[in-house]
């Protein structure tokens, strides 16, 4: 049985549908990420699981218990907020102990578990500080300790890293993942950052306009996007429209492509998608080649990103940073047939 099951969840606000017929199962101990742009319904979904928002339709199940009517304080979920939401009038230790106090845990056990939780997030020694005296990263860890100390059925993260700087973000997300794996706690994680989602998740749920676009493990989502939205949201895809002209062949304004039998049987219009790093520089025009002019060059250190134009279409290409083309140069690229994905 799944630890968390969302069954045809539906939530409307005046004027728009925030969550539209969303169904999802999360296995015990799994970390599932809801990924999408702002307004896609990911936070609404998370808040419905926590009980802060009541669904207009559908059911929320924790194991075999239907939780729709349980108030937030009876759900045994623990949420890590974007703003950390620490209690400013309590010390670090009091913050972490709050959930145990509410559960009426005996005082000596409470103290032991608070120490244990602070150990896990390496905050020992800061027990008596107040949140205002801590750095952003430390506050984030207090929030994490406060959430895990209650041994929740489900751990919820609402964009927990968006207030941290880039370097700390990577560090804390690794810590979150390690801790989550160690404790084996079922986790629902909301983010709009595709890199974060790819790095941390067992499975990713890509959402758009309240609906699920695709569910899959990070590798599948990245390599085999089903829709142009998913392809584009996870790392700037090139999307070109074309026509199926024969077995595995697609004709497009920028050239003719062989897809090795991946094309749908029906002839007609299709959309092809590939990643900027899938376009390789080629010497001659053999199969699957594109001739394009450089429009802009962006140096990123470990790679260089080019914007090139072919038959009026702009394409993004990642090349080795040792290669230094100039704007206006004409280049030839080739794409491996396996790397071209047909999307909706």
């Amino acid at each position, binding site marked *: 049985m799944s630890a968390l099951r969302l069954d045809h969840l539906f939530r409307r606000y005046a004027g728009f549908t925030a969550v539209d017929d969303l169904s999802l199962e999360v296995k015990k101990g799994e970390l599932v990420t809801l990924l999408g742009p702002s307004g896609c319904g990911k936070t609404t979904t998370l808040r419905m699981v926590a009980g802060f928002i009541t669904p207009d339709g559908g059911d929320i199940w924790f194991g075999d218990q239907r939780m729709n009517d349980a108030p937030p304080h009876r759900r045994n*979920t623990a949420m890590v907020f974007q703003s950390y939401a620490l209690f*400013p009038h309590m010390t670090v230790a009091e913050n972490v102990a709050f959930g145990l106090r*509410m559960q009426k845990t005996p005082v000596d056990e409470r103290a032991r578990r608070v120490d244990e939780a602070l150990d896990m997030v390496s905050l020992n020694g800061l027990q008596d500080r107040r949140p205002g005296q801590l750095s952003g990263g430390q506050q984030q860890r207090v929030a994490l300790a406060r959430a895990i100390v209650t041994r929740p059925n489900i751990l919820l993260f609402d964009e927990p890293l968006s207030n941290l700087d880039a370097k700390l973000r990577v560090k804390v997300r690794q810590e979150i993942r390690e801790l989550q794996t160690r404790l084996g706690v079922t986790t629902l994680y909301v983010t709009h950052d595709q890199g974060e989602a790819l790095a941390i998740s067992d499975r990713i749920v890509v959402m758009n306009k309240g609906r699920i676009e695709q569910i899959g493990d990070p590798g599948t989502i990245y390599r085999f996007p089903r829709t142009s939205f998913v392809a584009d949201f996870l790392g700037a895809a090139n999307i070109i429209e074309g026509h199926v002209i024969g077995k595995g062949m697609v004709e497009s304004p920028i050239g003719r492509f062989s897809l090795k039998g991946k094309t749908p049987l029906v002839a007609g219009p299709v959309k092809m998608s590939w990643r900027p790093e899938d376009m390789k520089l080629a010497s001659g025009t053999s199969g699957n080649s594109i001739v394009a002019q450089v429009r802009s060059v962006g140096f990123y250190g470990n790679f260089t990103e080019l914007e090139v134009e072919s038959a009026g279409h702009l394409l993004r290409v990642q090349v080795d940073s040792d290669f230094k083309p100039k704007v206006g140069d004409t280049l030839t690229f080739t794409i491996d047939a396996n790397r071209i994905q047909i999307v909706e």
Partner: protein
Amino acid sequence: MQAHRLTPLLLILPGAGFIFVFLVAALGMTALQSVGLYSLVGESRLTADHWKSLYDKAFFDSFLFSFKVGIASSFGTLLFAYPLALFLRRRRFGTAVINSVIKIPLFVPALVAAFLILNVLAFNGVLNNVLVRLGIIGEPLRLLNDKFGWNVFIIQIWKNLPFQLLIISATLQTIRTDIEDAARNLGASPLQVIWHIVLPLSIPGILIAVVLVFILTFGDYAITRVAGPVYPSSLSVLMYTKAFTLQQWGAAACIGMVITVASLIFVAIYARAARAIEEMRT
């Protein structure tokens, strides 16, 4: 060059000058009057007689009465204002109407308010009439000019409720909803959220609300004069009587000093408490 240096001083003169003339100078003169200087009647000489004249039962009774009214009104108002502020915090059906109706006392002068409520609380007033007709009480209650000052409290609470409500509502606004959500999420019921989170975080606002209403009611004249007991009177009423009825201007000045200094002491206590809370938090 010299003129340029004086310009800033000249610019603050209208504001600072006004404060100086009507506050510092007036207070200073009152202080001098209380020790016999600057006398309006009779000769001016340094004396402690005026202060000594205060050493009687009437003055101490007045002081205690004013103090009692101040404390009871400020905390009494809080008993109504705080729950109301909690209720009005979230927009729901009827809050807009309640919010505007509740502010009416702010625009009614204290004297008018006292007269209005007089009609309700009087021996033959609305409240007694209703209670007697309903058979709840045998004969009308004496609610007006009673020795304890119940009616003064009722009018003070009515008058100061919107004032405290504004202050406390503003404080509650500063408590972020995600902090309350976090508490709920960690297993706190709505009442526990108020007790453990909202109440401690709104103590600074509660302090301001209580101290301001204390100062307003401690120095009150109008409401005690109209609805208060015949004896003891409030300090302000006593001050008026000393000055205009008994022509004891020196003694009146002494009472004025007492009211001012007592208010300042309260503000100081408040400031210290507020600072302690602030330090506790950082």
